[in-house]
């Protein structure tokens, strides 16, 4: 029987299968109402400010400090998260040890745990009387109400991303190439640097980009631990909320648009990278 499948019917929009109309209607309604209109409203409101006013609103000294804190902390966290993520993914995939399944499940905790709970717990852990703070503060490591605390909590929320992107690529790695390299006399280090690392590098970079995107937008976890001090530990989302509460909608919108442009750019980069990873993994 020669039954055409929908994939080959590029000339026709409809196919034998039912439900195109209804599903298209639901999808269009939701995407328009929940994604397109909110983004459009943000863009239009920002555009209505005009270039000079927009710049004045989005480029105040306090805003610039907030971008710096956001970008700096997020970049640091993404780097740390990528390195730790590679380490954990490596251990989970390449080494067999009792408790490996448990460790694997624990990796998903930051995805399931509310960010507010993470923020609350991190701040109570690292203050002077906290479980960890009582050791760290006397050593001079002030994690609560500081930039370090922001980085720690951002690593927490981004760790699942860096691990879960690298894990499948490590799993599907071709052992034959590795074995050939070792048999031809390369040391383990050489094999890692010249055979394995290049193969997993796209995935590591994707994980880094995902972690960065996640960290830039994070609000709930940071709000508890950073102390939100303007010019020092105030991240961009906190500044937006601050401005909103003062009814300075124009300024809030301008800063939000800057943050949005950063995020959407990252989204485009990540999508491109993920397609490359998918191609390489085949």
């Amino acid at each position, binding site marked *: *029987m020669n*039954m055409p*499948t*929908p*994939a080959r019917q590029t000339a026709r929009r409809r*196919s*034998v*299968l*039912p*439900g195109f109309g209804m599903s298209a209607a*639901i*999808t269009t309604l939701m995407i328009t109402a*929940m*994604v397109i209109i*909110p983004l459009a*409203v*943000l863009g239009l*409101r920002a555009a209505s400010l005009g270039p000079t006013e927009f710049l004045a609103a989005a480029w105040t000294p306090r805003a610039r400090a907030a971008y710096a804190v956001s970008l700096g902390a997020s970049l640091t966290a993404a780097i740390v998260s990528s390195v*730790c993520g590679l*380490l954990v993914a*490596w*251990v989970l995939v*390449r080494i*067999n*040890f009792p408790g490996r399944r448990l*460790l694997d*499940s*624990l*990796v998903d905790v*930051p*995805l*399931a*745990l*509310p960010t*507010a*709970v993470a923020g*609350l*717990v991190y701040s*109570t*852990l690292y203050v002077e009387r906290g479980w960890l703070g009582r050791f760290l503060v006397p050593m001079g490591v002030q994690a609560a109400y500081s930039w370090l605390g922001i980085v*720690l909590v951002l690593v*927490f929320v981004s*760790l699942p991303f860096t691990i879960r992107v690298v894990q499948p690529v490590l799993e599907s790695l071709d*052992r034959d190439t590795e074995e050939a390299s070792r048999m031809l006399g390369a040391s*383990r280090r050489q094999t890692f640097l010249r055979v394995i690392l290049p193969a997993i590098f796209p995935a590591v970079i994707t994980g880094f980009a995902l972690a960065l995107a996640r960290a*830039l*937008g*994070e*609000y709930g976890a940071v709000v508890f631990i950073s102390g939100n001090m303007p010019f020092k530990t105030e991240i961009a989302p906190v500044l*937006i909320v601050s401005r*909103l509460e003062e*009814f300075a*909608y124009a300024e809030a*919108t301008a800063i*939000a648009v800057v*943050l*949005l442009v950063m995020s*959407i750019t*990252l989204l485009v980069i990540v*999508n491109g990278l993920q397609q490359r990873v998918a191609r390489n993994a085949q």
Partner: protein
Amino acid sequence: MPQPTITSANPLTERLLIAAAVGVVGLLIVVPLASVFAEAFAEGPAAWWRALAHDPDTRHAIWLSLTVAPLAVAINTVFGVATAWLVSRFRFPGRALLITLCDVPFSVSPVVAGLALVLIFGRQGLLGPMLQSLGWKVIFAWPGLVLATTFVTLPLVVRELIPVMEAIGPEEELAAVSLGASGWQVFTRITLPNIRWALLHGIVLANARAMGEFGAVYVVSGHIAGATDTMPLRVEKLFQEYRTPASMAVASVLAGLALVTLVAKVVIERHLEAEAHALAAARSLPDSLDNTPHDASLTTSTKGPVA
């Protein structure tokens, strides 16, 4: 420990790596998780229960979370199924753009999402005057909470369903249609049973995210205690009021829910893996067979009626 191979590291290195990985996960994940429960029950279970049940604002926050989150998840489930059906079974201009648009909530900061909602529904917003004349409150009321939560959980069900529906393919549904099944019959008897584990996975993840959402809800709620505080917002408010034990109590409920989510996730993922293996086994015939139409029956013989 398995036999070392030529590609594995020496045992000492392996042990160091394991220790390092366990250290990272332990420090960043296990210690915080444990401390939530330890601090919540630090003054005994009676105090924990009092903090939750005897505070009317906390009770309301729990009730609010338990109504807003499932509603948002239900909306996104309908959306997810519809969009997955559309994207995986049809080809049309704009399909790739649609898929990208579905991912937008992932990359937008929740605070920005909340701000957008305020700009639309707030008193000085686009629809502000109209809503005021109708007497409807969206911002600073539960409809706004539902909208904000729906936005942030939008991609979660769709992203689960699209790969599964594309992997399964339309053959069974086409066969059903050719045998005279109506659209609804095709959906309930063929599609839904095929995607039920992926659907459940998406629902579980979306629910966890919805109950834990903070940033977007914070912006639209006005955080009026006893009226628009969800559980995460309640945690923050109690923390601001220096009532840390009570804050920890509410946080422990959320953390407990997170653990339940993880267990459910692991169970569902086992079913998903089993299904993926079955699918791969059924499809693991040489390419030459797939291309000739009269041999198509061989590839679908284990799955459904032969056309």
